[in-house]
């Protein structure tokens, strides 16, 4: 229902937010030398001032420095999770769609079982069992997130594999891997890109949720979710400690959400 101009504006807003986040995570810490780990117990829960624009946390650490380092953490977790699940999903989905038969049947069954489970619960259980570490968070979220990409790729490959241009490529001696990679995946790319954009947002929220519950990234790493959890006991005396990471998290999700919505509209990917 949105006009193309509206979509372009939303895309611009989303892209600007994401770019801002990337800059905050990479360039800003280089220019502003703030240490996210330096504690100062004399200045616990310090209010915002000139030296510490967003105040200090329960251990006297600079909130702005932790927020910026958290941006890098969120972005890299999001990007790695999406990369892992996209790769697994595309390979599994393309294999199932191309081979058909029992391979396809088995893949569909596995996806059904995984989707029959609330994703967050599975991620929490998996992360809890593996132990809290950055690697395990990425592993748990990546291993659970591939189903959507696999479904998309499978549907696209299965629908196209009997078409004439595929037969022509086969007649010219193209192997399955080459045909799928060169001729079929580019057609699925817009839908995959839109899904990956939303995937970034949900991976970042999932990481924050896991860290909030204490089964995600271990301290002292400045995950925004962990920052919210650490700040909760001081909600009354130092509300800025909860507000800062929450606003950062919300704006990040908003950025990817707007970008995904707009990309879907612009590339005419039908929402399902």
């Amino acid at each position: 229902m949105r006009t193309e101009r509206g979509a372009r504006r939303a895309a611009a807003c989303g892209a600007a937010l994401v770019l801002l986040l990337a800059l905050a995570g990479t360039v800003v810490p280089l220019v502003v030398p703030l240490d996210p780990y330096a504690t100062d117990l004399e200045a616990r829960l310090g209010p915002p001032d000139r030296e510490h624009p967003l105040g200090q946390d329960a251990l006297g650490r600079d909130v702005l420095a932790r927020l910026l380092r958290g941006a890098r953490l969120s972005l890299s977790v999001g990007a790695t999770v999406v990369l892992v699940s996209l790769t697994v999903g595309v390979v599994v989905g393309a294999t199932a769609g191309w081979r058909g038969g029992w391979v396809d049947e088995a893949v569909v069954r596995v996806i059904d079982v995984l989707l029959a489970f609330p994703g967050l619960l599975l991620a929490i259980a998996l992360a809890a069992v593996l132990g809290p570490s950055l690697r395990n968070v990425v592993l748990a979220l990546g291993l659970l997130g591939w189903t959507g990409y696999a479904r998309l790729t499978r549907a696209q490959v299965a629908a196209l594999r009997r078409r004439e241009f595929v037969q022509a490529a086969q007649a010219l001696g193209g192997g399955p891997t080459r045909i799928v990679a060169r001729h079929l995946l580019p057609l699925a790319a817009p839908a995959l890109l839109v899904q990956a954009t939303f995937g970034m947002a949900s991976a970042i929220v999932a990481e924050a949720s896991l860290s909030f519950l204490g089964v995600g990234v271990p301290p002292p790493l400045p995950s925004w979710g962990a920052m919210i959890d650490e700040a909760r006991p001081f909600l009354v005396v130092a509300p800025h400690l909860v507000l800062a990471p929450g606003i950062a998290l919300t704006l990040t999700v908003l950025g990817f959400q707007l970008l995904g919505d707009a990309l879907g509209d612009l590339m005419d990917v039908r929402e399902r």
Partner: protein
Amino acid sequence: MAGLVLRRLALLVPTLLGVATLVFAFLHLVPGDPVEVMLGEWAAPADVAALRADLGLDLPLPVQYVRFLARAAVGDLGDSITFRAPVGRVIAARYPATLELAAAALLLGIGLAVPLGAAAAVRPGSFLDRAVRLGSLAGVCVPTVWLGPLLVLVFSVGLGWLPVSGRGGLAHLVLPAITLGLGMASILVRLTRASMLSALREDFVRTARAKGAPEWRAVGVHALRNALLPVTTVAGLQAGALLAGAIISETLFAWPGVGRLVVEAINARDYPLVQGCVLVIGTSYLLINTATDVLHRLIDPRLRDAD
């Protein structure tokens, strides 16, 4: 019709088996010796041996698997280490609180989403429509882990209207239910609006108007009833997801449900209890989804005939 229900129930069996297999695999994913992890390094050897025997960890893997499935099938989920009681009983004591919270969140979500979404669709582009769309975007973007503390800050600390945590009367339910239900409400608002927009363009609405039906009837009865079909399905699917989402809301508000129990069990390394909780929440989720699917086909005659 009975055939459809039976077929859908038959489909449950392999999926449930898959879910149980995943839960079984958890204990074996624990790095190192799970018994040592649970009891600590300095546990008495006799205790270690007893727990190992109780969990059946000294049996061959296939035997363990069959034993786990056979026990789970009759509701025997083992014993919780921290509570020193059967896992089933510990979970049963917490389950009603989670159901109460999820039901409140669902009611809130539907109660907000349907009227707002429908009203927005009746006048697209109006002030109300813009406000609803902006609100639903915000609702999707605010993560649960932050929404909870934010609500506490405004309504408990700032205004002093509602209690900060715990379970009690209706007042205790409000903030946890909003925290849990707002995301779902935002999804449902978008869906109701889109579905209502397309229903209002249908021939049967024009026919109703042409036959002289008053506007409230054309919109509120003819269009809305059809527009609600996809909404009920998604609401049902979301209802299952609420049970899992309750983990965060219950932790935030010290709500004594199964969600908080999972977190407690994880922190205490009480793996039988973790397994039990995951199995129970997963199974509930699955049953709700299946019920939604069957219900959807019952409501929509077109799907019934197609099947």
